[in-house]
């Protein structure tokens, strides 16, 4: 495995009630280029905090993150993020929301529009360019969120519980669709979720996180075929993985 993304001995605490709450306790991870790594853990396991540190939205107390050997000190265009609550700007339509993500890149107008239309097509939103976020369902809003991240053509796409705010029926379709678009664009993805099936379905590797403080309990390579459809959920291998991870999450360490 190459060292595309390196996360080294990350510690992070937050102030809480005149004391400190340790949320990340010495996280070390490696991710290869083109790999989809899914971190699964309970709420409060610090997995979102880890993702925010990789995004550059927060600084670790100690430890370091580097992408392609370059230390992460703040947000950067080589990392894009998909947010749990979508994070669309309600005053901009679908097209402008995606263009919003591209503006700091300083592209020409033509190139920005070409990339936007490409991203819109990839997430299946063609025809909805002029719609406002409030006119879209949650699932469609998240499609815009994914398109906005894709359009910047990031080396690493960070997904923070991307389908936790989407209803169950839509969620499975969107997981299949996300997997397809990630494979098509050969994007590396670091995904955080509390949904065990989602982690197995999307991940090349699943990292099981313990809670309070967050620690890496186990790393599980997923040997299912790279391109998966809904039917893999019924494979006994899938079921066994799900049961195994569930057991690990129940045990405290």
């Amino acid at each position, binding site marked *: 495995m190459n060292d595309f993304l390196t996360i080294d001995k990350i510690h992070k605490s937050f102030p809480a009630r005149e004391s400190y709450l340790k949320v990340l306790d010495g996280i070390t991870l490696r991710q290869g280029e083109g790999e989809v790594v899914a971190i699964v853990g309970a709420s409060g396991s610090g997995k979102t905090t880890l993702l925010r540190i990789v995004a550059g939205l927060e600084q670790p107390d100690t430890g370091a993150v580097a992408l392609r050997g370059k230390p992460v000190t703040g*947000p950067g265009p080589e990392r894009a993020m998909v947010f749990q609550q979508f994070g669309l*700007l309600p005053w901009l339509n679908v097209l402008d929301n995606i263009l*919003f993500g591209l*503006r700091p890149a300083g592209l020409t107008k033509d190139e920005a529009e070409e990339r936007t239309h490409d991203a819109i097509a990839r997430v299946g939103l063609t025809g909805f360019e002029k719609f406002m976020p*409030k006119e879209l369902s949650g699932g469609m809003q998240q499609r815009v969120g994914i398109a906005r991240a894709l359009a910047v053509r990031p080396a690493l796409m960070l997904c923070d519980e991307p389908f936790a705010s989407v209803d169950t029926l839509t969620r499975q379709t969107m997981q*299949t*669709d996300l997997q397809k678009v990630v494979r098509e664009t050969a994007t590396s993805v670091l995904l955080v979720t509390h949904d065990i099936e989602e982690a197995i379905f999307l991940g090349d590797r699943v990292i099981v996180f313990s809670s309070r403080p967050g620690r890496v309990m186990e790393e599980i390579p997923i040997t299912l075929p790279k391109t998966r459809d809904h039917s893999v959920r019924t494979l006994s291998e899938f079921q066994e993985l799900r049961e195994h991870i569930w057991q690990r999450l129940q045990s405290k360490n």
Partner: protein
Amino acid sequence: MAASAVQELGGDQPPTPRKPLIQPGVISFLILVVILGGWELAGRFDLINPFFFSWPSAIAKAAWVMLMNGQLFVDLWFTGYAYLIGVIAACIFGSALGLAMGWWKTFGQIVDPYVVFFSAMPRIALYPVLLMLFGLGDMSRIMIVFIGVLFPVLFNAYVGAKQTPRLLIDVARVFGYSNNKLFLSIVLPSSLPYLMAGFRTGITLGMVLIVVAEFFGGSSGLGREIAITATMYKTPEMYAWLIYTSLAALIIVRATDYLERRALAWT
């Protein structure tokens, strides 16, 4: 991604709801006719004292005369331009200052006590001071509108900027927006509902202030005309000026409503 998972565009036109037999607007108009008719008759037959109450046809005649001899437009312009300058300046300056106070926390903390002090002061109480400083000219009227409108606009902008959703700030930062760019592309638009609420309050307060300020003196203006006609017991003219003032206010409020709906269509 599969397009099948996405809603289809297009569909059947929903049925139009049936209209009521009599429009509420028609009933409102009929009630107005009854009131005006009753007032007219009461005035003509001395059931009310015409010296204080006049009657609709006399008021309409007075209103017509002002309209035809152009006196209405002289006063409308005199009040209107001072009002507009004061309101627009206050909306711009108040928004900028309030948003900056909400966004740059330290700046907000420094300015906050001054804002609290001045906003507690009854605005019209400042008018004698302004008269002393600027005389009876336009400047004193512009300033009373400016100061009066400034604080509601500023407070709403301040709250609006502070309420900027954390999520949207994170989104902009992840995509590489600097703090200053973020102010214009996130803080300003996300505060727009608050700004509009402040403008609405300011715009109505400004109308009260300029009319009251004109009671104090000056050469013309809607407030001045109401005060003069009242002291001279030119009752029909007084009511005519009152109606024109209300109509002008109504138009401004309606225009604000329209702008607000356009600006906030996304909410």
